[in-house]
């Protein structure tokens, strides 16, 4: 049956056009109940013994998605009209709903009522789209009841009073969410309910009667129409808002219309925004542009404070305070002050669920009743959230997840609802889980579909692989691997043979993961999503299932494995004469650790062929490294720490800096060379669809803190190019041995991180990798733990004509999406590792207060930030007690980077060595933190 839909629509140019679309109605859409006699039940999702079938209204789905995700809610029919409305209103809820509908364990069925000949309705004259959709839902509910007969109860769940009334009139059983959930008799489900907004049927009068909360705290958001016209006229600016990680009362909006970041200070100017919201901002008058500058370590009415944390390893992790220092350091004439603004409206919310705990509070008198509590997120950028709970006693010492529902301008805090409990606060497993959730890392076990893609275990190289003409047999070559001790996922191995001509044949063999992970399989989709393996202190979250990671792909000693090899012929001066790429079969003869490899090279008693290979390689690597440094590669340093973990309790036993040996550098050198060779090859073959990695040059402003610090200690750094910077870093030798490393660590912090990109998106000069001083770079050498390498393996195989290029590479937006996702996952993985190290540092110091040496890295008006090299941590040291701040006892000299006592008796300058006492304190119960005090 054919229907035509006709509606008017406004085009982007503002013209009004009439759109006519066909709309086919069908008789082959089935009800999804497996008991149904009439319908085809192959696609049925509702169980045969279901006595009640739920049909949900759109507002229920939009508001109560957390409830729907609870397994207690089942036998649900989602109408396509509801799906469509949800999709238009909130895409993230739509995706979650789609996830539910696609989940084989849940009984959610999508009924395409809009295309069914009996349930499609046309809008009546004068009927609003909303009313039409409500009617469509009722018609579908009625159809279901008639279709399934009286044995099954069809229950329409709606929170819309009008809809409920009409439904009852039409003879449909309708209930509100609250009454339905109550009828289920599971009290914990009630906490998942979102408080009804005004206009809906309210569950009970949950109005907050405290008079102090009644006053308007925030200014009203402007209506959307006003924002749109304001944006048009250029008085408002649109952009994504980023809250300062280290100061939740400072936010930045990257605005394209201004071409600069707009800073927003303070809670009222921020006007109820969350990190990641798309907002409209109005600029403040110029004379108010830096009114709220503050030099002190963040300190405000809420008693938030800068925690001791890991030393940042790049500019992305470091606190963003440079601008403030800059603005105050010089008179406003010289320093260009930055535009400051306030938020007038929110274009798109970025609300999701947050991880944290409840603020300690006394139990209310009537235990078991509803209590209001304040939720504090672990992420400092998120404000406190007010929630209602019936299980306060249970939740006080738990880490919980909370979702935000609304933020009224009368209320100081947003209101939200409880989603689920993770576990006891302070418990290591709970806190690790929190780290994973906060960084959006999927740590669930692999699904059966994914595991179904694995080859059967035990696996061994088959005769087919050996007979494959594209796969070279390199089993006779002496291949070995060098990795960290205890490494199970060995993805690279090396060989080095002296050729009769006096040249060397050097090979890098990488696990042939793409032989097992084929594009388009569930395994590949899962790996694309995960993007990278995540290394926490006590566990590893794999990108690929364990059998692949630790057995089939891992290039272990004395077993035959498939590999993808890059083989060079090199002169003894490490000049590459030729490069060859091939798939291969190898048999590693030794899996060495860095320590073992180093010991073999150093010990002159060893003279076996393997050690000779190692020494030859080391010689070549040194030349290559030297050449790279001459080209301007930076030797940067970061403060990596290593824990020794108790094998039974998984508690940290010892902590120390990660030691880098010559063997590490040797392996690294060949991996770099392989990556560069592969990058050249794939780019030559696929100029627009290669996946490469670039490292943008840091701008002058980014290096500003480094230069200022260096100037204060009388060092001048040349930052005009990476070569110049590398040279001046080499010459930066102070009076103590650690000075150079410290300067390098500070330099590393000023850099941004390298990113993946699709070669078609940028022009060739932008491909440059600043840190390595290489015009081209990619990741090829760790396909077991990074998805980027898997992509590059496929590209290289296609470039060699071994297989076809998967179709995805022809779709540039999709490739860009993959690159973006990889960057996002990569960054999250790093953040998670850091958070995990921080967590273990805290656990380690819990019973072990220590005195240690620290270096001042930043000066503040009431103290300074120190870096503890031994443990790789950084944190504030206060000179004045927090209560008596601003007493003026200490003065800061910006030029000299010094903080002096008013009488001049004591002064501290940057990079100076101080002794500090490290200890874990608990200012509030269940909130341990690390504290540094000067001794």
């Amino acid at each position, binding site marked *: 049956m*054919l229907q*035509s839909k006709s509606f008017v629509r406004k085009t982007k140019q503002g*013209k009004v*056009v*009439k*759109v*006519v*679309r*066909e*709309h*086919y*109605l*069908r008789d082959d859409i089935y009800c999804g109940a497996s008991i149904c006699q009439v319908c085809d039940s192959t696609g049925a999702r509702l169980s045969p013994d279901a006595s009640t079938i739920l049909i949900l209204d759109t507002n229920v789905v939009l508001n109560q998605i957390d409830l729907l995700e609870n397994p207690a809610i089942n036998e649900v029919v989602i109408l*396509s009209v509801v799906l469509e409305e949800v999709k238009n209103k909130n895409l993230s809820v739509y995706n979650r709903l*789609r996830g539910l*509908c*696609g989940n084989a364990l849940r009984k959610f069925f*999508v009924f*395409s009522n*809009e*295309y069914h000949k009996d349930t499609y309705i046309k809008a009546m004259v004068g009927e609003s789209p909303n009313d039409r959709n409500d009617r469509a839902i009722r018609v579908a509910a009625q159809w279901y009841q008639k279709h399934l007969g009286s044995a099954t109860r069809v229950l329409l769940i709606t929170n819309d009073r009008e809809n409920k009334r009409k439904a009852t009139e039409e003879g449909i059983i309708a209930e509100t969410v609250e009454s339905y959930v109550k009828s289920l008799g599971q009290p914990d489900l009630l906490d998942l309910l979102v408080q009804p907004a005004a206009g809906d049927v309210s569950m009970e009068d949950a109005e907050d009667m405290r008079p102090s909360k009644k006053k308007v705290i925030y200014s009203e958001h402007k209506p959307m129409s006003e924002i749109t016209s304001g944006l048009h006229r250029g008085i408002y600016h649109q952009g994504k808002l980023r809250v300062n990680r280290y100061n939740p009362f400072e936010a930045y909006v990257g605005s394209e219309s201004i071409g600069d970041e707009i800073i927003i200070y303070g809670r009222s100017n921020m006007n109820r925004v969350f990190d990641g919201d798309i907002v409209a901002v109005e600029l403040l008058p110029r004379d108010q542009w830096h009114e709220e500058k503050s030099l002190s370590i963040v300190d405000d009415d809420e008693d938030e404070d800068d925690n001791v944390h890991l030393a940042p390893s790049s500019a992305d992790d470091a606190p963003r305070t440079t601008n403030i220092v800059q603005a105050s350091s010089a008179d406003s004439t010289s320093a260009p002050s930055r535009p400051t603004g306030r938020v007038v409206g929110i274009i798109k919310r970025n609300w999701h669920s947050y991880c944290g705990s409840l603020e300690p509070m006394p139990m209310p008198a009537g235990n078991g009743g509803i209590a209001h509590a304040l939720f504090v997120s672990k992420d400092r950028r998120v404000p406190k959230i007010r929630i209602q709970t019936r299980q306060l006693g249970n939740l006080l010492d738990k880490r919980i997840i909370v979702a935000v529902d609304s933020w009224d301008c009368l209320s100081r805090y947003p209101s939200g609802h409880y989603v689920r409990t993770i576990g006891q606060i302070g418990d290591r497993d709970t806190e690790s889980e929190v780290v994973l959730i906060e960084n959006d890392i999927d740590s669930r076990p692999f699904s059966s579909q994914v595991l179904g893609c694995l080859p059967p275990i035990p696996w061994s190289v088959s005769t087919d692989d050996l007979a494959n003409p594209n796969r070279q047999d390199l089993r006779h070559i002496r291949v070995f691997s060098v990795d960290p001790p205890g490494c199970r996922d060995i993805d690279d191995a090396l060989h080095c043979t002296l050729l009769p001509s006096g040249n060397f044949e050097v090979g890098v063999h990488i696990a042939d993961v793409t032989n097992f992970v084929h594009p388009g399989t569930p395994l590949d989709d899962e790996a694309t999503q995960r993007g990278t393996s995540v290394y926490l202190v006590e566990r590893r979250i794999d990108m690929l299932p364990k059998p692949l990671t630790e057995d089939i792909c891992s290039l272990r000693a004395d077993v035959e494995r498939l590999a993808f090899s890059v083989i060079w012929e090199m002169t003894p001066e490490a000049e590459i004469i030729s490069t060859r790429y091939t798939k291969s079969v190898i048999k590693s003869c030794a899996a060495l650790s860095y320590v073992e490899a180093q010991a073999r090279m150093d010990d002159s008693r060893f003279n076996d062929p393997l050690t000779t290979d190692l020494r030859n390689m080391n010689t070549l690597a040194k030349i290559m490294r030297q050449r790279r440094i001459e080209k301007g590669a930076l030797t940067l340093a970061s403060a990596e720490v290593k824990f020794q973990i108790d094998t039974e309790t998984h508690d940290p036993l010892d902590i120390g800096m990660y030691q880098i040996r010559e063997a590490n550098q040797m392996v690294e050198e060949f991996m770099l060379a392989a990556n560069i060779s592969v990058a050249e090859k794939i780019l030559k073959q696929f100029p627009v669809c290669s996946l490469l990695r670039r490292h943008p040059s840091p701008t002058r402003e980014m290096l500003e803190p480094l230069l200022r610090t260096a100037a204060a200690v009388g060092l001048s750094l040349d930052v005009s190019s990476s070569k110049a910077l590398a040279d001046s870093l080499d010459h930066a030798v102070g009076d103590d041995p650690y000075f150079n490393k410290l300067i390098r660590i500070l330099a590393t912090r000023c850099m941004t991180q390298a990113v993946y990109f699709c070669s078609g998106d940028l022009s060739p000069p932008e491909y440059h990798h600043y840190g390595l001083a290489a015009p081209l770079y990619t990741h090829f050498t760790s396909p077991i733990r990074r998805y980027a390498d898997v992509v590059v393996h496929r590209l290289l195989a296609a470039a060699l004509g071994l297989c*076809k290029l998967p*179709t995805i590479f*022809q779709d540039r937006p999709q490739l860009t999406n993959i690159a973006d996702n990889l960057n996002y996952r990569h960054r999250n993985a790093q953040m998670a590792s850091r958070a995990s190290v921080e967590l273990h540092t805290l656990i380690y110091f819990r019973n072990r207060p220590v005195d240690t040496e620290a270096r001042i890295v930043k000066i503040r008006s009431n103290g300074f930030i120190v870096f503890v090299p031994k443990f790789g941590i950084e944190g504030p040291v206060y000179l004045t007690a927090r209560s008596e701040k601003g007493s003026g006892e200490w003065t800061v000299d910006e030029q000299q980077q010094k903080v002096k006592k008013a009488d001049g008796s004591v002064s501290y300058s940057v990079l100076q060595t101080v002794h500090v006492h490290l200890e874990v304190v608990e200012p509030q119960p269940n909130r341990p933190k690390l504290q540094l005090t000067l001794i």
Partner: protein
Amino acid sequence: MEYVSPEGLRLDGRRPMEMRQIRAEVGAVSKADGSAVFEMGNTKVIAAVYGPREVQNRSQQLNDQALVRCEYTMSNFSTGDRMRRPKGDRRSTEISLVIRQTMEACILTHLMPRSQIDIFVQVLQADGGTRSACINAATLALADAGIPMSDLVTSCSAGYLNSTPLLDLNYVEDSAGGPDVTVGILPKLDKVTLLQMDAKLPIDTFENVMQLATEGCKAIANYIREVLQENTKQLESRRGT
């Protein structure tokens, strides 16, 4: 954008392998020697054929075969916004050429030397797939004019969106930016006379998409044959034989 829902329905309620409703009518323009109206869903085209007749421009006359000319136009009211289109713009010139070449392949031109056949096709309402609809209408009109042809030519398009081959794209799907494969076949002879695509598609998916379009062409051919037979029966009964 989701062009095929997980339930397997397209935006207008069709399944991926389904065509829009087609309708054809022979003899819409009485002055012409042959004419037809062809509809595919909301796409509606009219075709009129004049000829074989004397060549208008003597210099173009061919001594061994007939001259086939084709003119494709879109009426101003064919799309939602009423636009005055210049005649002979790039797009319509191209489509005119495509239709002429496709039709020439099946007309037995050597039987009609020194004559001219004019095919006029006009789009009355456009909703994607005008090219295919025009070819189908032109076939009907040629048949109606009694011009000798080796076979009917029918055409249908297919696309590839959301990793699914889709038959007979409408305007919304056509403007999604995915590939659009237009195929024209001689169904009886099982030969391809037209194959157009201006996008990149891996060869194995392309084969599937083209296969789908060919199936569509065959279905259209069956329908067109029915319409012509019905038309012939009516002519027969009018003659009273």
